């Protein structure tokens, strides 16, 4: 059984179908790439799965459980984590505190416990601080832990976004264009990190514009165009797929006029 099953998913914005009749499966421990031209419905797909938009029609199940109608925090509680396209962080807080807040769900404490500084509250705090550092070390941000998020360079902000998502200890991690605006060196760091996250047992879905990076990283790729799935397969299969080439480059006549 697939970890996440999407059936007949449709989302209309007014008269526009951002996604129409989408079927797809995400299997345990894989990295799935979702690519497509601008406006193909990739982000809409993420926003539905993470509970920010209700779909017009269709069904999404996670570990066999229907998640349509659940709100974003409930979906997070089930184990679906996500990062955002733009740098969505707690900009005024330090790197450390950004990740610390990420542990919200896994932090066992009653308010009165911290007030009285009971041993168990102190232990929980110590344990969580340690786990924050583990994530920062894993992702290579440990040295920047006391920096305020908005002072970080763009690449590090994107990595921090992933760190926060990891703090929720997701089973499925949705990464929304994690490579946007990165220079080649940052890109290869990020790819390396994503691979490491997968190796630690997290299933990953990646929405991305950077075709080359997706081809390098993903075992399986789904191509969306105008809200429909037009191709699915291995990187090599996708590269040779005629529909995909047309979606990206237009038909031959069109591309010729473009070249001319």
């Amino acid at each position: 059984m697939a970890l996440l099953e999407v059936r007949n998913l449709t989302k209309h914005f007014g008269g526009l179908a951002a996604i129409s009749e989408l079927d797809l499966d995400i299997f345990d421990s894989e990295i799935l790439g979702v690519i497509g031209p601008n406006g193909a419905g990739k982000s809409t797909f993420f926003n539905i799965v993470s509970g920010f938009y209700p779909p017009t029609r269709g069904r999404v199940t996670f570990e066999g459980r229907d998640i349509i109608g659940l709100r974003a925090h409930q979906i997070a509680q089930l184990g679906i984590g996500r990062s955002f396209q733009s740098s969505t962080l707690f900009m005024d807080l330090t790197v450390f505190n950004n990740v610390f807040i990420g542990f919200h769900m896994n932090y066992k404490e009653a308010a009165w416990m911290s007030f009285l500084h009971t041993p168990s509250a102190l232990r929980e705090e110590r344990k969580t601080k340690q786990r924050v550092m583990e994530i920062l070390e894993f992702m290579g941000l440990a040295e920047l832990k006391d920096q305020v998020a908005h002072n970080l360079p763009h690449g590090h902000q994107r990595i921090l976004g992933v760190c926060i998502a990891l703090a929720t200890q997701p089973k499925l991690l949705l990464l929304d264009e994690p490579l946007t605006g990165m220079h080649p060196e940052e890109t290869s760091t990020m790819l390396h990190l994503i691979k490491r996250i997968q190796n630690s047992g997290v299933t990953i879905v990646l929405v991305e514009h950077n075709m080359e990076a997706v081809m390098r990283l993903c075992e399986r790729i789904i191509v969306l165009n105008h809200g429909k799935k037009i191709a699915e397969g291995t990187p090599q299969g996708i590269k040779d797929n005629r529909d995909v080439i047309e979606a990206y480059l237009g038909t031959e006549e069109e591309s010729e006029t473009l070249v001319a």
Partner: protein
Amino acid sequence: MKLNLKEITLSIVLGIIILTLPLIIKSPYQMHLIIMLCINIVLGLSFAMLFSTGLITIGAAAFWAIGAYGSALLVMNLGLSFWLALPLASIITGIIALVLGSIIVRAPGVAFVVQTMVINMIVGQALGQIEFLGGWGGILGIPRPNPIGSIKFVSKTHYYYLILFLLLLTVAVSYALYSSRTGRAWRSIRLNPRLAQTLGINLFRYRLLAFIIASMSAGLVGSFYAHYFGTIEPGTFSVFKSIYIQIYSILGGLNFYLIGPIIGALIMTLVPEFLRVGKEIEPILTGGILIMLVIFLPGGILSLPERTRSFTAGLLSRREREESLH
């Protein structure tokens, strides 16, 4: 929390001054001013909690009123002791906040502000129109707190220590909440509600919790106010008062939920007093202060040291850049 020697000394000196204030200040009028200041600080601190979740309210005075009227009616009609009415008024206010909050807390941004304002107006009208609640003339002759031993609540000093206790209680509860998981969730909602949700934080529940706690605390000082002042009337609990309470937390500083409202209430209560302006001019003055603040110091007064630092740092780095060019 790590304190250095200077901070410890400062806290002790400040503590001694606060505890011995009635010995220093002899004028009953000034004592009254200080008691009112303490009430304002508690109100500011309470609704700063809601503000820490990113919600602005113009309805705080309504919950203050519910506590005041609730307590007065419990004591005068049911013959309860003040010491029982005080916590009961707080609980009643909390229950009303739970019911109203469940309806309005979901509303985003401006809609929430307007709804709290409407609640304030409705409560004001209800208090004025319903004869049982005293009408526009209010309730007169609310009894003093029942004496405890030799403390008979005849002098302002006794009231001062009671309100000081309530103030310290509010500070302690606020501090506990802000330094806990709950407080972190509140702050994360204000800083970035979308991101907070993906961390499993239930926006509605955490905001409702802040709304209830803030209202309970307002209800508590409402009860105190009624029995201290002896009379209550709808005019006191106007939308204007609610705006002031919100300003207390904004004026002090956005990221200083504990010290901010204290500084804010201090300035907003004492400055008009010292300037001795008439009641008619006061709103103009405070409005002016607020506009200046929003334009020149959007982070609040406590952001001033940080601002100066980054300003001088900016100047220095510019000089370095210029020097490196030569």
